């Protein structure tokens, strides 16, 4: 499933909501009758999935923000997982 092009624009899937929960010090994804607590890096990626930025832009932003390189593989792997779990969907 990691054939996700750098030009894809991931967005939070319909009906789900992402928010920062101070009590849990984490981003959580909320959906009907459940939630997923995201760890730091998952939260950093998914909070940039706004349906506007492309995967390539998200990678660049993360690398700049955290002063790292070579994040592309990790980001694509997470986006693939999140698509599989229907946390994310791709926008044209």
């Amino acid at each position, binding site marked *: 499933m990691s054939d996700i092009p750098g030009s894809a624009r991931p967005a939070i899937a319909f*009906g789900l*909501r992402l*928010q920062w*929960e*101070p*009590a*849990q010090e984490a981003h*959580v994804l*909320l*959906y*009907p*009758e*459940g*939630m*997923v*607590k995201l760890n730091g890096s998952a939260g950093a990626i998914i909070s940039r999935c706004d349906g506007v930025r492309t995967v390539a832009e998200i990678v660049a932003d993360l690398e700049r923000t955290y002063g790292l390189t070579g994040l592309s593989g990790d980001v694509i792997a997470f986006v693939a997982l999140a698509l599989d779990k229907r946390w994310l969907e791709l926008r044209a």
Partner: protein
Amino acid sequence: MSATPPVGHGLGAPNAAVGATPASRGVGPPLWLLLELTYRCPLHCVYCYNPTNFAHTGPELPTADWIRVLREARALGAVQLGLSGGEPLVREDLEPLVTEAHALGFYINLITSGVGMSEARMRALKAAGLDHIQLSFQDSTRELNDFLSSTRTFELKSRVAALIRQHGYPMVLNVVLHRLNIDHVGEILELAEAMGAEYVELANTQYYGWAWLNREHLLPSRAQLERAEGVTQRFRERLGNRMQIYFVVPDYFETRPKACMSGLGSVFLAVAPDGTAMPCHAARMLPGLDLPNVRDSDIRTIWYDSPAFNRFRGEAWMKEPCRSCPERGRDFGGCRCQAYLLTGDPDNADPVCDLSPHHALVTAAVARAEQAGSAAPAAARERPLVFRDHRVSIAVITGDPARGGAPARRA
């Protein structure tokens, strides 16, 4: 009335993903808040999980108190909100409550029969920030019979389903199954498809409250269950992703109990119409649990400090075989209410577990259901089906040992 108690997958469920959070059994926040806004309900479910003595509970909380509960719970970290009842649409302040909950950042689930839903209210609820609606069947003997014969109820559900879809919500249908309707699963699924349901939860009855009173009528046979699962499977194959169907097997047919509420006092907080705070929606029945009321204390005190919410935290309360069982961290000994109803002691293992010395109580009930073929079992014939209704509730309180209060050791 919302049909399924909030356990396992589905309605009001602190499901695995939610339950996974408080890792250490150090007490985490009440992530899941269920407000039973009213016990008033136009319907009369035979499997309703409201307490059988609901007619004797105090007056409903006023709007201001519900708002305070929302604020206090949210401040502690509550994030999933269930609004149920009774029928929550009976409350005229539902819209302002949703507005407040949305402003606070709750993800808001409404659990409704659809009775009382109009275009105007749907629009208002959407504008107020409602996130999700679950359309439930209320009385599966009366209402579902109606539905199956395409009369009023089918039209009501279809109309509400259309409103739900028009307002951009996924269409989620919850139907409670039991002996009297489980053979109609095929028709139920056809009608669900016709009304455009995207998710269907076929939840077998769980035996508390009114369902406990009616257990001998409601427990299906294994053959019925298997047929229903077969029919469900064929629908899944035909419809693929278009309509996702969940089939929840009654736990009486299992050998391990469900991980009730991820452990009482771990993630779930329910508030009854009169303000009683409960670690599970059925906990009123448990003996000696002095349940706090939101009129008297704030949510923080209730959640962290009240004896009732601490009663089943951790493992110290457990008896053998749970106390030394390697699986105790997975199922927490199962359902306290079921342990109490069947064995008379809420600290026992849930007798659904085949390691429980009381497991025979469960297998005996299943065996009776088995023998009886499709007719109502003998024990049931002696005792009529009890419909949830105000008048019956009073009769139950005054005369029946199986009321939410005393264990009925019938099995």
